[in-house]
């Protein structure tokens, strides 16, 4: 199977004062369609920089990046926006929802910048909200939702344009452990539908839900191993059974 993501010698330097600091030295790897990858590493290891480059949010200082059939490193800013809109879904640690805006409008936000006809948008947003289990909360504002619910809204937003790839940057970082497992179960369910997921986390037990774990240190990949993922849904079921008993 052809790789969905292929990076070759990808690197990024930041200017700190007068000196160039390499945040990412040189990363070469491939991620296949349908993989669930956990990216781990201590802070400053370059894992977030790597994610931002994968998400076309930042521009690399060097190296090549191919997503699907497109050579990302050669695209203009407008073309990059198009790629972010149609091929990539983002889930952030702090949800990044628009305040004082209903869950439905938050989910529909990416559709405003897409080719989807205006008449279809509410239906698609509604369908994605139902998929993440928030059919009853569509008119709620973020401040009226719990952290877990807010992250579900964010996931629904990431899915609304039918991306091939979901990038999740510490999606459980602001959540308690039970809610974290719920979110991971949701991501695993999406992965089973064929969506490729790349997840940044520094929590080992969260990384264990992925099928592949990549470790970063000092701006380079130091370990890249397959993993037999824990089943988050099963874990939730057993916890529920214990609580009931």
């Amino acid at each position, binding site marked *: 199977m052809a790789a969905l993501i292929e990076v070759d010698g990808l690197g990024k330097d930041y200017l700190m004062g007068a000196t160039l600091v390499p945040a990412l030295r040189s990363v070469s790897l491939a991620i296949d369609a349908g993989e669930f990858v956990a990216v781990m590493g201590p802070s400053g290891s370059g894992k977030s920089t790597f994610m*931002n480059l994968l*998400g*076309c*949010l*930042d*521009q690399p200082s060097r190296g090549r990046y191919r997503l699907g059939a497109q050579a990302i490193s050669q695209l203009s*800013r*407008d073309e990059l*926006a*198009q790629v*972010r*809109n*149609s091929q990539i879904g*983002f889930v*952030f640690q702090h949800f*990044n929802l*628009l*305040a*004082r*805006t209903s869950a439905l*409008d938050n989910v529909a*936000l*990416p559709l*405003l*910048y*897409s080719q989807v006809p*205006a008449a279809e948008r509410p239906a698609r947003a509604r369908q994605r909200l139902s998929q993440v289990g928030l059919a009853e909360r569509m008119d709620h504002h973020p401040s009226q939702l719990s952290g877990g619910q807010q992250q579900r809204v964010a996931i629904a*937003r990431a899915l609304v*344009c039918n991306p091939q790839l979901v990038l999740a940057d510490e999606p459980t970082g602001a959540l308690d452990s039970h809610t974290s497992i719920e979110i991971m179960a949701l991501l695993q369910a999406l992965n089973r539908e064929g969506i490729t997921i790349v997840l940044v986390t520094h929590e080992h037990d969260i990384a264990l839900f992925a099928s592949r774990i990549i470790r970063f240190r000092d701006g380079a990949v130091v370990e890249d191993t397959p993993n037999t993922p824990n089943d988050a849904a099963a874990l939730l079921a057993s916890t529920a059974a214990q609580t009931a008993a």
Partner: protein
Amino acid sequence: MNFAATLRIALLALRINKMRSALTMLGIIIGVAAVIVMVAVGNGAQARVEAQIRSLGSNIIMVLSGSMTSGGARGGSGSQQTIYEEDAAALMREVDAIQAAAPTLRGSGQAIVGNANWSTSFIGTTPEYLDVRDWTIAEGRGFEPAEMNSSGKVALIGQTVAENLFGDASPIDQVIRVRKVPLTVIGVLARKGQNMMGQDQDDTLLMPINTARTRVIGVTQAKSRSVSSIMVKVKEGADMKEAEERMKELLRQRHRLQPGQDDDFYVRNLSEILQAQEASSRVMALLLAAVASVSLIVGGIGIMNIMLVSVTERTREIGLRMAVGARGRDILTQFLVEAITLSVIGGLIGIVLGVGASLLIAQLAGWPTALSATAILLAAGFAALIGVFFGYYPALKASRLLPIDALRYE
């Protein structure tokens, strides 16, 4: 992304931030309303002066009798009767710039009709008088040549006289006795209102000059043709100063004055006084407009601050929008449409408030106000421009950020 979508995004964003939107608009509203009101008040004052000039008649020069010197003591103007009815005819005939010249003989007395009476001033004059004063006859007719020549016992009366002597009844063909002389009312003059000194110009009675001289006043034979004054109207577009000089020359010649001898008459240019007043009221109007402009500029700075803050505090939102697929120009259009919407709504409210306040001032304070379309358009346009510019500029900066930098903005 089409325009309707952009508009929807912008309106949604405005609705979400109602308070901030309202505060931004407040600056525009106050600025626009202030300019409209100030200019309306200034224009109103100017219009009132202009109306006074019109009520006097435009381009008027008055010729008065000179003063008499007797034993070293000089009398006031009119102490010597030195101008004559013929001078008026000569002025009209020989000075090109003069449109009309009306000799006047003034007097006052009790006007009596039945058991009603009213003290008024009367003027004996010629039909040219109405032309000079830009005065029209509201009801009835003017003097006819036969009446002028034969000292006809007829009169034209002002509105005040008509009201006081006849009430609601028609005065036409009624007989008024002035100093015991019965005069038939042939016409009523149109209402003219107060002059700049606050005198009621409608409290007057006109009669043929011969009637006034021979029947009502009864002037001594020696000075039989002398008059109190001559009112002259200079043709539209003619040079007032030059006309005045030509008049003086002609009168000196007619009165056989030697070079070096003082004029035996006075020439007063009434329009000049009013024009000076008009100039000062124009200065006041300009001053008011300047003050209002300052408030518009202050309002503009308010708009600028709120726009700058609003765009800055929304940098993360901009980052998010970019992350989910907004291009730089989508961001830019959104903020531009937001700014235009705020400015237009604020401008409209400002116009409504400004016009309303102007009308209210006119009603309550009794000041004349005159709304100026130019001021309204200028104020609203300027406010819109400020809103758009200061909304656009920070948005332009934000739209050029890398998505990740906007997202991470603290």
